[in-house]
C-alpha cells in the first residue's frame, strides 16, 4: 500500500544537546564518586591515590551539570518552583533534591578526606554511594517515564545509564590521574600499577555495558512496531554511524581489545582507550536522547 504524508506539522525538540550533556556530566560525577569510595569506603588500598581526585572531580562536575538544565528550561528564574510545588510522581522532582543533597555530601566527604579523618570519610562515603547511584539513576527514570518514546521507555534505562556512568567515570579517572601525575606531581612519576588496575576494571565494566546495550537492542527488535522503528533508526538509519561505529565500535569494542590483550598493555594504549571511551559515552548519551525523540509520534 502506498501511503504518503502530504501535510503534517514539525514538532519542536523536547530534549536535546543540553540534556544529553547534563546526563553525561552527572554520569561522570557519579562514576568518579564511586571510584573514590573504593579506597575510602571499602578499604581497597591500591586505589587510595584516586580517592581525592575522585571526590574533587565528582563535586566539580556536579556543580557544572545543573547549569545545562538552567540553560535548557525556558524559565530559569522559576527554578525555585521545583522545591516548592512538589509532584512525587515526577523523576525531575526527585532529582531536584538529589542535585542539592549529593554535592553537599560530596563536599563534606571530601573535607574529611583531606583532613585525614578516615572514620568520618568512610561514613560519608557510604552515605554518598546511594546518593551517587540515585543522582544518576533518576536521569534514567526521566527517560524511562517518557512512555511515548520506544527507545526511552524501558526498565533497563536506569541501569544502562549507571553502567555507562561507571565506564565513563573510570576512563576519565585514568586520564586525570595520568595528567596529574605527569605534570602536577612532585616526582613526575606515573603510578603504572594503578593505571593498569583501573584499565582492567574499565575493560570488565565495558563488557557489562555492552551486555546491557545488547539486551536492550534485542528486545527492541522483537517488540512492538514503534520499538522496531527505533531499533531501525539506530541500526540502519540516521543515527547508525554514531551508534554503531562511534559509540559501540570505537567507544567500547576497540578500547576493550586494547585493554585486555597483554601485548597492548602500556600506558599509551590505556590512555588512548580511555579517550575513546570518554568520547563514546558522550555519543551514547546524545544518541539516546536525540534519537529517542527523532521519530515523529503522529
Amino acid at each position, binding site marked *: 500500500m502506498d501511503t504518503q*504524508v502530504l501535510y503534517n506539522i514539525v514538532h519542536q525538540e523536547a530534549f536535546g544537546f543540553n540534556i544529553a550533556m547534563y546526563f553525561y556530566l552527572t554520569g561522570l560525577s557519579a562514576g568518579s564518586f564511586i571510584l573514590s569510595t573504593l579506597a575510602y569506603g571499602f578499604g581497597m588500598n591500591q586505589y587510595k591515590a584516586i580517592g581525592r581526585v575522585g571526590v574533587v572531580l565528582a563535586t566539580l562536575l556536579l556543580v557544572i551539570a545543573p547549569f545545562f*538544565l538552567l540553560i535548557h528550561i525556558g*524559565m530559569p528564574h522559576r*527554578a525555585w518552583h521545583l522545591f*516548592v510545588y512538589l509532584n512525587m510522581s515526577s*523523576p525531575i522532582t526527585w532529582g531536584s533534591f538529589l542535585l542539592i543533597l549529593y554535592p553537599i555530601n560530596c563536599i563534606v566527604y571530601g573535607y574529611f578526606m583531606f583532613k585525614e579523618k578516615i572514620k568520618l570519610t568512610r561514613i560519608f562515603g557510604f552515605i554518598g554511594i546511594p546518593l551517587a547511584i540515585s543522582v544518576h539513576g533518576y536521569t534514567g527514570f526521566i527517560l524511562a517515564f517518557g*512512555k511515548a518514546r520506544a527507545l526511552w521507555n524501558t526498565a533497563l534505562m536506569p541501569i544502562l545509564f549507571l553502567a555507562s556512568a561507571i565506564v565513563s567515570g573510570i576512563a576519565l579517572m585514568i586520564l586525570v590521574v595520568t595528567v596529574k601525575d605527569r605534570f602536577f606531581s612532585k616526582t613526575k612519576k606515573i603510578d603504572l600499577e594503578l593505571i593498569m588496575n583501573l584499565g582492567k576494571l574499565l575493560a570488565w565494566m565495558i563488557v557489562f555495558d555492552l551486555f546491557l546495550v545488547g539486551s536492550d537492542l534485542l528486545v527492541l527488535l522483537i517488540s512492538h512496531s514503534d520499538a522496531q522503528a527505533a531499533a531501525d533508526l539506530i541500526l540502519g538509519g540516521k543515527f547508525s554511524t554514531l551508534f554503531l561505529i562511534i559509540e559501540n565500535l570505537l567507544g567500547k569494542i576497540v578500547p576493550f581489545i586494547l585493554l585486555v590483550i597483554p601485548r597492548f598493555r602500556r600506558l599509551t594504549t590505556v590512555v588512548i582507550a580511555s579517550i575513546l571511551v570518554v568520547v563514546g559515552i558522550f555519543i551514547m548519551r546524545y544518541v539516546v536522547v536525540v534519537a529517542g525523540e527523532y521519530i515523529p*509520534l503522529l
Partner: protein
Amino acid sequence: MKAQNKRLAVLFDLRKCIGCNTCALACKSENDVPLGVWRNWVKRVEKGRYPHSREFFLPILCNNCEDPICVTVCPVNAGIKRPDGIVYIDPHRCIGCRYCMASCPYGVRYIHPIKKIAEKCYWCHHRVDAGLEPACVEACPTGAILFGDLNDPESEISRAVAENAVQVIKPESGTDPQTFYIGLDIESVEAKQTEDK
C-alpha cells in the same frame, strides 16, 4: 458542584471532514497561537495509487486524557486536570522544562516561542466556562466536530458515541484519551514523514 458530574469529550466524524483546516485557523485566532506552533492541525495522508487513491484527513488536538502522562510527570504540578476532564497548564507555574512535551504520546504540546512555557489545546476552557463551544467546534463548516458531556446521555456527543463505532488514537499508550473519532484510518495515524526533518 455541577462541574464534577461532567465528562467532557470531543468527537471527530471523519466522514464529514473535508480537510479545510478551518479548525486550525479558528484555534490560531482564538488562542493567539504564535507562528510555527499549533494547538490543533490536520494531518493529510494520501493512500493508494491513481486512480485507486484517496486522501485522508486526521484532525489532531489535545486528547485531554483521563489519565494524562503529562500531568503525572510535571515536576511542578503545572499540569492540572479539572473535574470535568479538561487538562490545562498553569502559565504562572510552568518552568518550561519540556518534560511534558517529551512524554506526550500525541505530540500536542509546544513551547511558546516568547513566553517559553509549555502550551497546548485545552478545549478553549475559557469559552466552555462561559457556556460556548470551543472555537474549532464552532468554526467547522461541515459540523464534523462534536463537543459535549459524555456523562449526559441526552447530549449530542454521547448519542453519537453510543450509536457509532468510535476509535481513539494510540489506545495502547494507556492514557485513556477523550478525543474520539468516527471512521479513523489506522494507516493515516501510523504514516510517518519519510524525508528528513
